[in-house]
C-alpha cells in the first residue's frame, strides 16, 4: 500500500501498463514536457519517449479519431482530453464512430481505446470548462463509462479500462486530482467494472453518489448519524456497465433512496438510476426516489452562483429528511 494522490495513482497505472504492454501509448494536449496540465502524465515522456507519449495539436476530433483507427489496427491508445467538455468537439468520432464501429461491423472490429480526462467544477473555469458530461455516454450505447471517486478506485478502474477491449470513457474530476488515499502496490490490482462500492452500510436510507458526491454523502452520513439516521452510501463507480443489483438490494433494504450527482438533474445519470430503482424496488419504497443534480442553467463563473447551482451537502440532508418524512430542522 502507498499513499498517493488521485493524479499520481492514474499516472502510475499508465506507466505500469505501458511498461507491460508495448501497444499501449498515450496522446493528448500538453502531455509531454508539461506532463499534462494536471500532472497525470508527469515523467512519462522521459521514460517512454515522444512516440509513445505523444503531444497533439489542438485537434480533438482529429486525434480521437486517430485513436480509434490505431485501436482498430491493434494498438491500445489512451487518449487524454484536457477537459471532458471537449468531447463535444470530438463528438462525432466518439459517439458515431468509437461507440458504433464494432456493432455496425458485425463484431469484426475491436476498439481497445481509453478516452480519459477530467470534468466538473472546482477551478473557476466557467461554463465551457466545468461541465459533467458522463450522461451522454451512458445514453448512447457502445462505450463504457467509468467514474472513480478515490485514488484507489482511479488506479484499479484505470487498469481494467486499459486492459478492456472496448472504448472506455474514463471520467476523472478536477477537484479530486489532489486528494490522497491508499493505493495497492500490486501491479495487477484492478477493480472490475460493474461492481458498485458500498462505502457505508445503513438501514434507514440509501445515498447513491458519484465523484465528489461520494465524499459529500459520507459527510452527510456522519452528520445524520448524530440525529439517529442510519445512512447507507453507495458509489456506483461505473455507469456502463451499471451494478443495478447492489443498488436495488440496498433500496429494498432501506426503502428510501437519494441519488446525487454534479451533472444537471434533468436527463442526468440520476434520472436513469432513479427510474431503475423505482422499477425494480417499487413495493419496497416508502417514498419516491429523490434526485439531486445541478440546476438547469449554464454553470456560472462566480463562485457564489456556482454553489447555488450544484448540489450542496445541505441539499442532500434536506433530501434525506424528505424521504424520511421528517421535518427540516
Amino acid at each position, binding site marked *: 500500500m502507498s499513499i498517493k494522490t488521485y493524479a499520481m495513482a492514474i499516472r502510475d497505472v499508465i506507466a505500469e501498463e505501458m511498461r507491460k504492454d508495448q501497444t499501449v501509448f498515450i496522446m493528448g*494536449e*500538453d502531455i*509531454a*514536457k*508539461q506532463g499534462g*496540465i494536471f500532472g497525470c502524465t508527469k515523467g512519462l515522456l522521459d521514460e517512454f519517449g515522444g512516440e509513445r507519449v505523444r*503531444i*497533439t*495539436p*489542438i*485537434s*480533438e*476530433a*482529429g486525434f480521437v479519431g486517430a485513436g480509434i483507427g490505431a485501436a482498430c489496427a491493434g494498438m491500445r491508445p489512451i487518449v487524454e482530453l484536457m477537459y471532458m*467538455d*471537449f468531447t463535444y*468537439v470530438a463528438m462525432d468520432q466518439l459517439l458515431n464512430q468509437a461507440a458504433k464501429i464494432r456493432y455496425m461491423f458485425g463484431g469484426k472490429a475491436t476498439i481497445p481505446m481509453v478516452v480519459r480526462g477530467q470534468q466538473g467544477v472546482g*477551478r*473557476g*473555469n*466557467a*461554463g*465551457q*470548462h466545468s461541465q459533467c458530461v458522463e450522461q451522454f455516454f451512458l445514453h448512447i450505447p457502445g462505450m463504457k463509462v467509468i467514474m472513480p471517486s478515490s485514488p484507489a478506485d482511479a488506479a484499479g478502474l484505470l487498469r481494467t479500462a486499459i486492459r478492456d477491449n472496448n472504448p472506455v470513457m474514463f471520467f476523472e474530476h478536477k477537484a479530486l486530482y489532489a486528494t490522497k488515499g491508499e493505493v495497492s502496490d500490486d501491479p495487477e490490482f484492478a477493480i472490475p467494472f460493474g461492481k458498485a462500492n458500498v462505502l457505508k452500510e445503513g438501514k434507514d436510507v440509501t445515498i447513491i453518489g458519484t465523484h465528489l458526491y461520494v465524499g459529500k454523502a459520507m459527510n452527510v452520513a456522519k452528520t445524520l448519524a448524530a440525529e439517529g439516521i442510519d445512512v447507507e452510501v453507495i458509489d456506483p463507480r461505473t455507469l456502463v456497465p451499471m451494478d443495478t443489483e447492489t443498488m436495488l438490494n440496498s433500496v429494498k433494504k432501506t426503502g428510501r433512496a437519494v441519488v446525487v450527482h454534479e451533472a444537471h438533474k434533468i436527463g442526468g445519470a440520476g434520472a436513469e438510476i432513479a427510474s431503475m430503482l423505482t422499477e425494480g424496488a417499487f413495493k419496497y419504497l416508502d417514498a419516491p426516489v429523490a434526485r439531486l443534480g445541478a*440546476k*438547469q*442553467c*449554464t454553470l*456560472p*463563473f*462566480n*463562485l*457564489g*452562483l456556482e*454553489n*447555488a*447551482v450544484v448540489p450542496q451537502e445541505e441539499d442532500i440532508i434536506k433530501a434525506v429528511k424528505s424521504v424520511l418524512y421528517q421535518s427540516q430542522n
Partner: protein
Amino acid sequence: MLEKERMISIFKTMNNIRKFEEKAYQLFEQNKLRGSVHLCIGQEAIPATVCSLLRDEDYITSTHRGHGHCIAKGAELGKAMAELMGKATGYCKGRGGSMHIADLTKGNLGANAIVGGGLPIAVGGALAAKLKGTDQVAVSFFGEGASNEGTFHEAINLASVWKLPVIFICENNLYGISCHASESTSVVDIGTSRASGYNIPGYSADGNDVLTINDLVEKAIARAKAGEGPTLIELKTYRWLGHWTGDPQVYRSKEEVEEWKQKCPIKRFKEYLINNQVLTSAECDEIETDALNQVEAATKFALESPEPDPATVMEDVFCEN
C-alpha cells in the same frame, strides 16, 4: 502613415491593455481572481491595431486570451475587471468570467474558451451582414493552435465559398500551452501556406508591428467590403507570460522570453511615434500614467462591486419574451 489621431488612439489602447493585464496578474497573485486568466502581455499591437480599423457595428470574436481584443473593441475597463472578479457589475453579470467577455453593443460577439470555437461564429456575423446588405465586416481572432481544429477548415471554406466579409486573424504566439508550433502545425507560415487551400489571399507577418498589421488589415477590410470574400492574416507574436497565470512554463527557456521582450510592441511603437513627432516622450509617459490610473479606477470599481445574488442564478437561461 496612419492618421495621427488613430495612432495615438492605438498607442493608448495598447497601454490600457498592458496595464490591465499587469493588474490582472497582480490581482491573481493576491488571490482576488477566481480561476485563472490568460494574459496577452506582449501581443498588444494586434488587438489595438486591428480594432482601430473597425467600427462599433463591425464584429469580432475572440479567444480565451481575449482581454486585449475586448478592450480594443471598446470595453469599459471597470466592467471588464468586474467580470474577471465575477461581480454582478461585470459584462456578463459575473457568469462568464475572463474567457467569456462579450458586449454586443460594441460588436463583440464574445471571447470563446473553446479553441477554434469563435471562427464559425464570426462567419455568422459576416453572413448576417451580407444578408442584411450592410457593409459590416467580421474579424475572427484565434491562435495557431486553433488553425489545427476542424472549425478552422470549415469556417474558412464556408466564408470563401460564400464570399463573406470575414478577416481571419491568426495570432501565432508559437505555443499552445506547452506545445511549440513546430510540434503541432504542419506548416511554419500558416497565413501564406494554408490560405491557398481555400482560394483566398493569405499573409504571414510581424504581429508586433502596428504599421504592418494596419497595412494588411486595411487591405483585407477593403476586399471584404467589396464583396470579394475573406482573408487569412497570420501575425507572429509572443506571449511574455505563461499560458495562464500560474503556468510554470517548463516548455520554453527564459532566454527565449527575454529575446521577445526586447521586441516589445509598445516600446517599438512608442519609438516610432516619438521619432515621427506624433507624440513627445512626455506625452507618451502621460498616456502610460493615464492608463495606469484608469486601470486603478477600474480595479477599485470592480473590488467594490457586489457579488451576484444567488437567487438570480436561474435567470437568462431562456429569453422570456
